[in-house]
């Protein structure tokens, strides 16, 4: 084993122990399933239409402030092989999302998401450096505040992931969204700061409908830093997606959630557009557009089936996205198309996902990238999810296979606990 790998694995082990201690602490654990059927990022957009309390009435029938604290953690044991270059040695990868919600009253809260995951880029000299760039092997982990914002009614202020696309969180399977995560190569607009206004439309007959407006820019604060692997701070002259002087990157998104399709399914869909300002050194600002939909079809869905643990459903998902003026170059585009089929049956989940990416340029040859992923998961009675996954990816001339076994568990240490709490 190389000394470098030993150092990385030692760090991984220490990180694993540290995260394991946090994950499996003495506090109570919750029974939350992995939200494979839900979009955490999307879900963060869904807010109550809070009505500010009337000035002459009491502020409510509950105590404040309230705290909620949860950790969603996973441990992978994975391996990667490739015929086009070196593989990556098998090892453990730890990923944890810790969410904090501090509610001051019905309207005002502070929300935070601390994310610990592999962050170190692969070495530029690695012939497979573009393969599985968002997966963990051979990459040092770091944790940072992915989100930290104030929510006031339908407004958000601070650092959050704008509501653009859902595939990076909704595609089932641990390795399925590799092309899509992160804003530089994918289209997850993370590490942004700004302000958002949400409008929830009144009529819920056709599902929950909402429109989001956001103005934002890249996070150039200390919140961009991570530990132990430090991604550092961004400076304006570093350029990159959204790294404008002012929050002039603008988003409009239309979401519809759980619109009934006859009596047999629920459909959710989204359309969104981002106009990016021109970043330092670029020819143009990018334009991002996306449209996607998923349909959930209960198969054995009666109440009795559900109570017996025999609920089953299909879920099909498709999403396309386009980045015009990709990397700020006029005429360069990157297009994405991803789709998945998921079948849940009691504690089992089976899913197949494919993602395709086209990068086109006026000068450089077109590049087509593909990934195919399959996963099987099982939810234990403790609601720990154990899953086996394998992915095959082609990025240009690089090809590889990534496979692993993962344990995922959500821990709720506090769920809307009163700060000054008594049991009864």
């Amino acid at each position, binding site marked *: 084993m190389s000394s470098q790998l030993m150092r990385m694995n030692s760090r991984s082990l220490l990180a694993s122990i540290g995260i394991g201690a946090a994950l499996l602490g003495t506090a109570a654990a919750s029974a939350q399933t992995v939200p494979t059927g839900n979009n955490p990022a999307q879900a963060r957009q869904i807010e109550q239409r809070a009505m500010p309390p009337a000035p002459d009435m009491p502020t409510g029938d509950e105590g404040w402030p309230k705290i909620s604290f949860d950790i969603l953690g996973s441990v992978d044991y994975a391996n990667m092989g490739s015929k086009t270059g070196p593989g990556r040695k098998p090892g453990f990868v730890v990923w944890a999302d810790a969410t904090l919600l501090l509610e001051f009253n019905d309207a005002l809260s502070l929300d935070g998401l601390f994310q610990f995951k592999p962050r170190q880029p692969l070495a530029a000299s690695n012939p497979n450096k573009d393969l599985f760039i968002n997966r963990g092997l051979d990459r040092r982990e770091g944790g940072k505040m992915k989100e930290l914002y104030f929510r006031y009614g339908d407004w958000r202020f601070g650092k959050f992931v704008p509501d653009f696309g859902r595939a990076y969180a909704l595609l089932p399977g641990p390795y399925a969204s590799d092309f899509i995560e992160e804003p530089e190569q994918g289209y997850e607009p993370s590490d942004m700061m700004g302000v958002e206004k949400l409008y929830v439309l009144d009529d819920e*007959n056709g599902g929950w409908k909402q429109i989001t407006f956001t103005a934002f820019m890249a996070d150039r604060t200390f919140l961009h830093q991570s530990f132990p692997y430090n991604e550092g701070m961004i400076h304006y002259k570093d350029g990159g997606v959204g790294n404008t002087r002012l929050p002039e990157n603008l988003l409009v998104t239309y979401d519809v959630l759980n619109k009934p399709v006859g009596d047999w399914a629920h459909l959710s869909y989204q359309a969104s557009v981002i106009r990016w300002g021109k970043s330092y050194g670029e020819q143009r600002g990018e334009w991002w557009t996306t449209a996607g939909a998923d349909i959930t079809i209960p198969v054995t869905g009666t109440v009795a089936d559900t109570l017996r643990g025999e609920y089953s459903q299909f879920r099909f998902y498709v999403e396309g996205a386009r980045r015009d003026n990709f990397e700020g170059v006029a005429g360069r585009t990157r297009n994405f198309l991803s789709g998945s089929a998921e079948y849940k049956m009691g504690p089992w989940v089976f899913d197949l996902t494919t993602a395709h990416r086209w990068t086109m340029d006026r000068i450089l040859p077109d590049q087509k990238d593909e990934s195919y992923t399959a996963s099987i998961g099982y939810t234990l009675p403790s609601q720990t999810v154990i899953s086996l996954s394998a992915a095959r990816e082609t990025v240009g001339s690089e090809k590889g296979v990534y496979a692993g076994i993962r344990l995922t568990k959500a821990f709720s240490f506090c769920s809307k606990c009163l700060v000054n709490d008594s049991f009864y």
Partner: protein
Amino acid sequence: MSSHSVKISSGLRKLAAVCGLAVVLAGAGHGLARAGAFDAILGPELDVPPSAATEPLTTPTEYRSNNGKLAITVEAKATRVQLGSFQINGATYNGVYGGPVLRLKPGDELQMTLVNHLAQATNVHFHGLQVSPLGHGDDSMRMVLPGETWQYTIAIPKTHPPGVYWFHTHGHGFAERQLMGGLSGTIVIEGFQDQIPATKPLVEQLLVLKEFSADGNGNLNAVSKPFNGQIKTVNGQLMPRIDIRPGETQLWRLTDQTANTYFRLSLDGHSFTVVGRDSHPIPKPEVVREIMVGPGERMDVLVTGAAAGTYKLVAEKTSTGPAGDMFPSQNMALLVSRADTSKPAPAPLGPLVMSPGTDKPIPGDRIDAQRLVSFSEDRVTGLFFINHTTFDHERVDVKVPLGNIEEWTIRNASDELHIFHIHQVAFQVVSINGKPVPFDGLLDTVNVPIHGEVKIRIPFTDPIIVGRFMFHCHILEHEDKGMMQQIEVYDPKVGPMPDGMNMAGMDHAHMLHMDGGH
């Protein structure tokens, strides 16, 4: 040894180290109900063997009306409770974890004086009773502060359907914990057996189902999920013994008085004959091998003793869906069937002739309004919604003129079950996922399938219900986190109350300082 073999061994050592640490840390803070060190991975189950069934099932303390009136003082207080070999720190009415039983007749008046000895505000809701929400009636919005006393005066109409109902705390934001602590009791409006004459000579067993999630010190877990361990009881007893004679038929009247728990009950070697749901007889009895009751629901079943022997009543493992909870299995009671030579042999059960009384299908030829109630949730913020809003006691969401018959579509836009309940009225289920269902008696709670819909028909026609009350998901975790709305039934000659106006009898001064007792 090759370098590749060294790497594999190193990887296995790391795997062992992480798993070992996980086991040690999962075992730390071991709850009372945890079965072993692998609970974090496998989940705990409470092992209650049949040999633990030493105590006979007892009905909690009963109070009966006399000359048309039942006056009772109910003291809500923190209580140390013994459940088998476990001690828990609960909250009870009058120290009775199983909850007091109040027996009244239609036409009686219940005067309940609630004394709050808790550190939190609390109150009482009379679940299923079709009584007034005004004044000192069934006002679930009125909170009783710590140290305060409040008298509820509940006039039971002479035409009130007989059956098993219940009463429980309804403090929004903490109802789940208070109910889980034990703050509930049973109400029996006599006369149900008159509607099914074959049941009149039968022994009646009240089975009150409760749950508690205890940490290592017997306190309620901060997150009271079944994963953290769960102790399920019958009448406040862990694994009681239910005595029956071979061939004897008993009427078992179950109430799910839990905050969140569904029960899927099976009885070794026996089947159940369902004769009533939510206090109402059903038109046609059903013979089933397992009965399912959700939070707030009631069920009346007949059980006929098998040959002499012992039979476990088991709560089977139950799930509420991909985004819901998994409830571990547990032995609930032991049915002991043995002959009693001092008594004549039990008579066979007579023919089951159901006289549903006032239960008739609600006419659908005149529907005055159609409404949508959409249950949804946000797993990240932990909020639960009805029609994209969370509960606001200052907002009246639905206003209905008295006399309306309405059809409501209850939609479940989530990946777990929800159980719809409305105060003050009973309704008829008309269709499930678009398929019409035959009339099967009136209900006050109904489960809504995942990504499905239930259509119900509600008669807002009884003048006694004029006023403001609530409808909500009766999984109280969801209700506490927002899944509730307020409805006002108003006299059309007078019109609805202005928004923001207090209900008669509601003193908003009592809404101040409801902050957990500080």
